[in-house]
């Protein structure tokens, strides 16, 4: 069984916020809630990078662990979903999530928050697939239609990838190979570049990257 994953290639993200808009449009998301957002690190500095972030559908999901009513569940494809009928709006998932994925329609006095809303990996909720009720609570169930998440499908630079983790890993590996350098996280350029010199391997000119 495929294990669903998101992967955002920061070398490609141009901070167009198309994924955010696609998500809002696809699921009819109310004002004030953004299931996805784009964060730019070192904005305005040469080498700035943008990353699109939403629910990462963690294997050991903190939201699931702290929910006092146990309203979260995981599908066979590894998508973390929740049942809005059980949710009491306590906000604990919001405290626990490192990615700021859980959102609430309100943040009012006396802890009035409403039902939590978050990215569903376009997989809906516990209701019947693509039923009226499921759409109203969670948005469209694209996975049940055989489609991948709208954000990733709409990404103009194919920075944001969503789908089977094995396939995504292969795509990213291929990109790294073609670029001739790794995600700089691994310190490839740090290891082989020297101050005052050109990088060990320049990005392939005209190549598919």
């Amino acid at each position, binding site marked *: 069984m495929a294990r669903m994953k998101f992967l955002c290639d920061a070398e490609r993200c141009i901070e167009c916020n198309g994924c955010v808009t696609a998500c809002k449009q696809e699921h009819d998301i109310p004002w004030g809630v953004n299931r996805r957002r784009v964060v730019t690190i070192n*904005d305005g500095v040469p080498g700035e990078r943008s990353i699109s972030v939403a629910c990462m559908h963690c294997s050991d999901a903190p939201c699931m662990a702290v929910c006092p009513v146990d309203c979260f569940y995981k599908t066979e494809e590894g998508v973390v979903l929740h049942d809005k009928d059980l949710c009491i709006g306590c906000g604990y998932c919001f405290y626990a999530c490192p990615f700021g994925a859980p959102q609430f329609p309100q943040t009012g*006095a006396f*802890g009035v928050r409403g039902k939590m809303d978050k990215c569903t990996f376009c997989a809906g909720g516990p209701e019947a697939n693509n039923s009226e009720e499921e759409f109203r609570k969670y948005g469209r169930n694209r996975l049940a239609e055989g489609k991948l998440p709208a954000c990733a499908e709409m990404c103009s630079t194919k920075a944001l990838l969503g789908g089977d983790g094995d396939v995504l890993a292969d795509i990213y590996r291929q990109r790294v190979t073609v670029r001739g350098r790794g995600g700089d996280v691994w310190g490839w350029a740090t290891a082989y570049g020297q101050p005052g010199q050109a990088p060990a391997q320049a990005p392939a000119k005209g190549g598919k990257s």
Partner: protein
Amino acid sequence: MRRTITRAGVALLASAWLVAAAQSPAVDPKQADLATAQAAQQLSQPLNNQPVWKEVRSGAQQYTSLPGRETSVLIQPEGQTWRAVRNGQASVYGGWLLVVVVLSIAAYYWRRGSIPLSEPPTGRKVRRFTTGERVIHWATAIAFVALAVSGLVILFGKNVLLPLIGYTLFSWLALLAKNLHNFVGPVFVVCTILMFLAFVRDNVWQQGDAEWIRKGGGLLKGEHVPSHRFNFGEKSWFWFGVVFLGIVVGVSGLVLDFPNFEQTRATMQIANIVHLVAAIVFIGLSLGHIYMGTVGVDGALESMRSGYVDETWAKEHHEYWYNDIKAGKIPAGDEAEPPMRHRPA
């Protein structure tokens, strides 16, 4: 000469202020350093974004075009710590602490039973609590029990009740508990302030408290140590329970109950742990107080219910207070005669 000194002093202060102002830039210095490092990296090692990736888990505010609190934070790693402490040490040790407290009280009751009066009641009543004091006490008590029960449902219900009553029913119960907790919380804070004002006068250190401590309150030997209106045990409950834990639980609770003041997740994570730990200690101590005030001491519940105690009770449990009343040092009270229905049985 004096003016020169004054001038020199002013100049020194001004320069100190300038130095201080120059050292506190508007931008977070750590972040400014990383931005500078990133700019330098692009010159020396183009395409190396190591300084960017160093910031991914920093929890620092970055840039995002989306409005909202903390939307510009990419990863907030402290939530993992909150989860580990809440689900781990805090609830495991906290839960067992409550079980141990309940078992110890049960064991004490089994060994000692209810403490009766050693002499027959006289039938003459002494006023112990005014109507105002009793109203404040019971308002606080009801609020406290509502908060304790709803809080325990939110913390332990998933492990204890959910398997028994199922998802739907438990969700309704938890929703009720959450709203009860959030709306009764501020009422409890107000009650605690009133409680402090009503009882602080008789909870100061008095002669006789030292002896009470030395004899451990006579709890083990079953003797009565003379005390004023409140003995040292009651005073400890007042200062450590009502006042200290009341402030800790109240302030941390209000931080969580009013999330509409732009407080960050980190603030609420800390407030939640502080609230949880203090509340468990508070509940544990309250069980002791409830025990002593109901089945533990014969006549104690009646004193808070009617406001009156029998003279024998007053003499046995609070001898100094009784002597002061007899000597006319403490006014007899606003209610001249106790209600008839509170005659001794």
